[in-house]
């Protein structure tokens, strides 16, 4: 009995201590919601020290996850970092606040070519965080031809050596581009044609993977994979046998940009955070850590040579042609869903 009393006492004291600590921390707070494994945590620490603002950092795995969480309400976030088409949808649904650019002077550091994109034509809602492409990662010990076309993913020579992305849009985009269509097509016949060639391809596919593709390709367990350029940078760093190619039929160009949702409680803190992340030295540090492509030229100059000169992260401008940025599929989401289920259940 005596023991239990002691234990209860200890518990009470520790709970009080936690409360006391919570009360002691009366710094303003911002809630940041970002993709998993997509920031250098030291950068958050530096922001907290410099601005005296506490950062509550949480993560999501897909744009759709994040969208549903925000749409449901109940939780308030000050900074979110969705992709292009999701920003378009959120602007259309009045889910974002206009940014006060006076509070984000570092905006002028951002590469102008990356601003005023279709998803935010007036550039009032978003500040680019990272950008990249979707291409083919291949293992040079297993593939000794030139990789420059999506066709190679349908080559029977590589049966059971091909990894596709486990993502409706990204996989359909590959098929649509191979057929010469737009990846934003709203024509159901074209989408079904894309589905049919993906079904033809299925016997050759080793697996449809998400983040798992990284370990599999680094271990040299497959010859070809469709990947995001930022992940390609990381994988090539880990396994130098790997190389990355951008298909000539065209490919997806994507942006992840920082926005402030309308549920934000600390808009000024959020703008301070966005401005901080856009500061060249901070952007350089963050980019060096995650390996994706920075939209800030001054930051790129500060990167280590292997990253700065990487063709994967910063391809020559003549390679970035035939690109398309995803648009919000909006009312044809159910067509994508049906087509993806038909492929998966085939």
């Amino acid at each position: 009995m005596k023991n239990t009393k002691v234990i209860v006492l200890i518990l009470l004291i520790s709970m009080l201590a936690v409360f006391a600590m919570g009360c002691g921390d009366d710094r303003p707070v911002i809630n940041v919601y970002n993709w998993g494994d997509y920031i250098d945590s030291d950068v958050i620490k530096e922001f907290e020290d410099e601005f005296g603002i506490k950062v509550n950092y949480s993560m999501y795995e897909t744009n759709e996850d994040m969208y549903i969480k925000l749409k449901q309400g109940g939780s308030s976030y000050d900074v979110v970092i969705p992709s292009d088409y999701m920003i378009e949808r959120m602007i259309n649904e009045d889910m974002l606040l206009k940014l006060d650019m006076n509070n984000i002077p570092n905006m002028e550091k951002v590469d102008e070519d990356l601003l005023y994109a279709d998803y935010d034509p007036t550039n009032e809602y978003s500040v680019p965080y990272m950008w990249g492409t979707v291409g083919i990662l291949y293992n040079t010990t297993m593939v000794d031809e030139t990789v420059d076309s999506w066709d190679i993913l349908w080559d029977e020579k590589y049966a059971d050596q091909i990894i596709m992305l486990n993502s409706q849009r990204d996989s359909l985009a590959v098929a649509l581009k191979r057929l010469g269509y737009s990846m934003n097509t709203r024509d159901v016949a074209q989408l079904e044609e894309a589905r049919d060639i993906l079904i033809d391809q299925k016997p050759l596919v080793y697996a449809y993977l998400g983040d798992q593709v990284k370990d599999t390709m680094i271990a040299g367990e497959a010859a070809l994979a469709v990947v995001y350029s930022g992940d390609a940078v990381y994988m090539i760093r880990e396994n130098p046998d790997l190389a990355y190619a951008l298909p000539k039929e065209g490919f997806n160009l994507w942006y992840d940009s920082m926005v402030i949702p309308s549920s934000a409680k600390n808009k000024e803190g959020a703008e301070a955070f966005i401005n901080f992340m856009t500061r060249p030295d901070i952007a350089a540090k963050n980019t060096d850590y995650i390996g994706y492509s920075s939209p800030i030229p001054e930051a790129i100059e500060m990167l280590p040579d292997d990253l700065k000169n990487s063709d994967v992260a910063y391809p020559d401008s003549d390679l970035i042609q035939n690109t398309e940025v995803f648009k919000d599929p909006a009312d044809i989401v159910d067509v994508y869903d049906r087509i993806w289920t038909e492929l998966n259940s085939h």
Partner: protein
Amino acid sequence: MMKRTSYPYLAWILIFTIVPLFLVLYFAFTTGDSQNFSTFIFSLDNFKKFFTPIYINVLIKSINLALVSTILCLIIGYPIAYIISREKPKKRNAMILMFVIPMWMNFLLRTYAWVTLLGRNGLINTFVTKLGFPALDLMFNEKAVLLGMVYNFLPFMVLPIYSVLTKIDKSLLEASEDLGANLMTTFRRVIFPLSLPGVITGITMVFIPAMSTFVISSLLGGNKSNLIGNLIEQQFRWTGDWHFGSSMSIILMIFILITMALTSRFDKEKEGRGRGLW
């Protein structure tokens, strides 16, 4: 009269079982924008959509895979439970502990471990090729999914059978021997029938998670052939159609209820005394 002490539990059941269940039912029988209650209208479309060949095929495949893994668990698990239950208490507790310890680790982590074991250049294949054999194709197929299921759910089969077997009155076995039955007959006529409640519990406890899993088929199956669990996940996480997702959950629940009803009837016919574990 309900005892006052049971109120907290009733509240718990109400908040965490009854209310969510009704929400799932409500979503299943409506359509509209999943995030906006005011757009909901009563509809059976979700069920109509489900009863088309693609979804039915996925359901059949899931049932098949769950059945096969349940049978495998039973075939592997029963002898294990039997052998352990015959040991002296001290040794047998240690053996059961060995069986339970891996379950202290996160389920996802244990499944992920198989990814590194089964991969083309994984541990098993490195060993196989060192011995001079060609590498085996172990990953991203139905066999890998089955292996993942049997590995993860086997303890749920062994534990209930074991706990029933250890409770069997030893004098019954002696009586059977006295009456001239050999070991085989004793097992067939005495031990096995008495252990049935454990077997039934084991079957339900393996079949239900095997039927609804989506993590195993995704990690070890490479998303090549979806199970019903994957389709439900897809509705909630990608497509955002909670109505269709809920109706699939309801259909899955109905199938689980049917299996439970079948097994419990079987249980009563055989036992009659209601000695099941739960």
